[in-house]
């Protein structure tokens, strides 16, 4: 087993005191970056990149990738505690994580989220270790039609799984598509729907919308309900971590399903956000506690987290073997590699063994270190909920505003965030789901590009989405996901 030997050598590189120190430092910075809305992993890595130009490349990538792991772990914290997803792939975590926190189970939710992230990442790393060259080739099969099919699958599975009426889900989703259309149109190179108003040329950023819809909307709602912050009865002892762990093994099927979905989405590279939604949808479909989803079901926390992190981790694989950044953070790391004088690509594994295996070893160690760090902080984070709402609400508001400003350093975005807050409040009052809106805002742009690129290549012929077994399968599954719930509803109606 050449891989095992190479990996052992990698561990000897990664385990030097300097690298271990950088690893923990990276994790800590990453968790902080993940917790603060508006400051994503890509930005954190970009800011710290120049700092690493004087380090040797292996130490540098270990630190930067640990920031990435840290941000992944950190993203779940605010989703669960305050219903504010710090990253797109944490949106699905809010569905059950936040209700759990409100039921006084914040610590359980956090523990489940962190442990699941760890599990998902671990499965992905094992795949990277042993199957790197094999799976890398698979990513190459993905052209525009395949990308669009995956996006379609995500949207369709959403319509099927929502507990709200399908019409409301579609309405929210199409509102999201409309917002995503504003700004630059990548296919024609022209501005759309900006009405000559300069702040709109950069379009609506997902982060601004999410901070407003979820964060501000939630605060408005809680204020109306009389400043009561539910969940302060949370039981907070370190033992809670152990007790939650005892519960987790019985969800092994959910874990495996989500990890498989995640790895597949990361390698192809469909991305972590679709992976998290799909993980949630599949878990809900197969779970015996179907009806409890959305009300604080622990399975609804661990499924999206496992999938998101399996995807996020395996997204590094196409970067190393093909030089395709599977994510914005990977794109920044890619820039770093070039500056350090390393060329990612098919030959990296051959020419830079120390670097590659040092990095892979640091993925194992970094995730273990990350799990230890975040689990140690669970009681602290859960304790935040004990602070009276009248104190914490203004703090959240300020953090939200700073976060929204930080995204583009634009004051306009802060007003936009407030606007989205009102929309979020109205959505809640009228019982429209917000997640489809967010999903459409995140993926709408990419789906549109992939759709139009496909049609450009096929001169407008829709058969391109059934042109080979891979794309035909995904498209068919997507359409079935869309139609199946409707057929079920029809059958139910005829029986009556």
């Amino acid at each position: 087993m050449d891989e095992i030997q190479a990996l052992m050598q990698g561990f000897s590189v990664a385990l030097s005191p300097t690298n271990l120190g950088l690893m923990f430092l990276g994790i800590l910075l990453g968790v902080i970056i993940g917790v603060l809305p508006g400051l994503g992993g890509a930005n954190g890595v970009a800011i710290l990149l120049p700092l690493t130009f004087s380090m040797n490349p292996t130490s540098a990538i270990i630190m930067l990738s640990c920031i990435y792991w840290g941000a992944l772990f950190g993203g779940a914290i605010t989703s669960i505690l305050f219903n504010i997803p710090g990253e797109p792939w944490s949106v699905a975590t809010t569905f059950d994580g936040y209700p759990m926190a409100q039921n006084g189970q914040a610590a359980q939710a956090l523990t489940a989220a962190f442990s699941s992230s760890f599990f998902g990442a671990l499965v992905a790393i094992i795949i990277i270790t042993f199957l790197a060259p094999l799976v890398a080739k698979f990513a190459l099969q993905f052209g525009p039609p395949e990308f669009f099919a995956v996006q379609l699958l995500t949207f369709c599975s959403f319509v099927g799984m929502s507990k709200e009426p399908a019409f409301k889900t579609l309405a929210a989703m199409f509102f999201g598509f409309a917002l995503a259309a504003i700004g630059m149109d990548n296919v024609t190179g022209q501005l759309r729907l900006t009405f000559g108003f300069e702040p709109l040329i950069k379009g609506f950023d997902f982060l601004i919308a999410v901070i407003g819809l979820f964060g501000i909307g939630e605060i408005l709602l809680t204020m109306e309900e009389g400043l009561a912050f539910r969940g302060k009865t949370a039981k907070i002892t370190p033992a809670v971590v152990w007790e939650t762990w005892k519960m987790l093994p019985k969800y092994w099927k959910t874990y495996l399903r989500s990890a498989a979905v995640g790895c597949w989405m990361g390698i192809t590279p469909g991305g972590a956000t679709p992976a998290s939604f799909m993980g949630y949808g599949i878990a809900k479909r197969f779970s015996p506690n179907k009806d409890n989803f959305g009300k604080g079901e622990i399975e609804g926390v661990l499924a999206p987290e496992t999938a998101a992190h399996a995807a996020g981790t395996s997204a590094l694989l196409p970067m190393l073997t093909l030089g395709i950044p599977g994510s914005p953070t990977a794109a920044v790391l890619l820039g770093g590699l070039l500056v350090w004088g390393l060329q990612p690509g098919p030959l990296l594994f051959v020419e830079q063994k120390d670097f590659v295996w040092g990095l892979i070893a640091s993925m194992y160690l970094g995730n273990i270190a990350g799990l230890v760090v975040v689990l140690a902080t669970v009681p602290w984070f859960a304790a935040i909920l004990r602070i009276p709402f009248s104190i914490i609400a203004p703090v959240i508001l300020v953090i939200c505003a700073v976060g929204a400003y930080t995204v583009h350093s634009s004051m306009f975005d802060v007003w936009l965030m407030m606007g989205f807050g009102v929309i979020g409040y109205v959505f809640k009052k009228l019982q429209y789901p917000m997640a489809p809106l967010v999903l459409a805002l995140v993926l709408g742009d990419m789906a549109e590009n992939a759709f139009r690129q496909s049609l450009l290549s096929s001169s407008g012929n829709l058969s391109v989405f059934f042109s080979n077994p891979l794309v035909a399968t995904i498209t068919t599954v997507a359409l079935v996901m869309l139609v199946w719930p409707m057929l079920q509803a029809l059958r139910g109606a005829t029986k009556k």
Partner: protein
Amino acid sequence: MTYDSAAHNRAKPGMYDIGFSRAVFSRELIRINRTIRAQNLQSGCGQPTTPKKVTNVTQLRFSKIKVALSAALVSATALCASAAFAWEPTKTVEFVVPAGTGGGADQMARLVQGIVTKHNLLKSSMVVVNKGGGAGAEGFLEMKNAKGDAHKIVITLSNLFTTPVATGVPFSWKDMTPVAMLALDEFVLWVNSESPYKTAQEYIAAVKAGGGKLRMGGTGSRQEDQIITALIEKAAGVKFIYVPYKGGGEVAVQLVGKHIESTVNNPIEAVAQWRGGKLRPLCVFDGKRLAQKEKIADMSWSEIPTCKESGLDIEYLMLRGVFMAPGVTPDQVAFYVDLMKKVRATPEWAKFMDEGAFNTTFMSGAEYAAWVAKEDTRHRALMQEAGFVAAK
């Protein structure tokens, strides 16, 4: 937005600054510095090693730490202040990138930032700010509106010329102050290495025979890649299906996966795939062959024929240059010209130029302005002809 696949390149907005978490970051930075200190860092002022922490702390402008390390700080700045400038930045310099994180302009800006920090070339610090909205219009409008602000510089790509024409957003290079050309980025015609085409002639003949069905992939729409595609169509009397993607790396991989037939990627976007034996360069869109003689795959950059040699009389190079806001003084411009000269003299810069097979022409002052004016006119004419002008 860390994980999503397509969101990574030129057209995507990035972010600004570490903002409110500065304090926390500074504390962590000090810890990093303890580990870095062991390494020898050459000071850019020709003085013996100055610990790197000084610049980092300056960069973060975190007052407590400043006080704590004031002794080191004072000595370091004293060393660097020896050269007499009529003007010097007094606060953090913002380096605006009118594109998203991870693209060519972003890489270069971050390299400059890294070099400036490592070699102590600036008394204050430099931060890179991505403003890529609206194909770069966001960043250029910010410069246009920052009249007289000498603590803001912007790096350009061809969108300086193409975005105002293609989108109608009102800005032009004349709204800014030219500082210096850092380099010119080359363009190469690439095909998949498994395709039968060995020369540009063979490929063009195949495009002709294909009756407009062959696909050319490129970054963005109505930008440099599509302009070159239009130039090829005109010169050879052929037709491509142009498929726009979001970034150069994505384009290169699509070519490896045979979802398109050719690209006009920059060298740095495609070099890894070339070395890996997945792509084949056919010709370079420059008047003369590239300078880099080192073998990359089966051949070196310098062995790639020019497109002109191959019967495609097309020259196109992309500006990697620096501009300042309008209304700055000549002394302020002189400072940045000098700074960029120092950056270009470092070994890190030389290595980057070599790897990306850049054309290392340098220009400043009137010569640079004249070059930019000429390119602007050329782009307007090219885009007019290709029908890439925004509808009024």
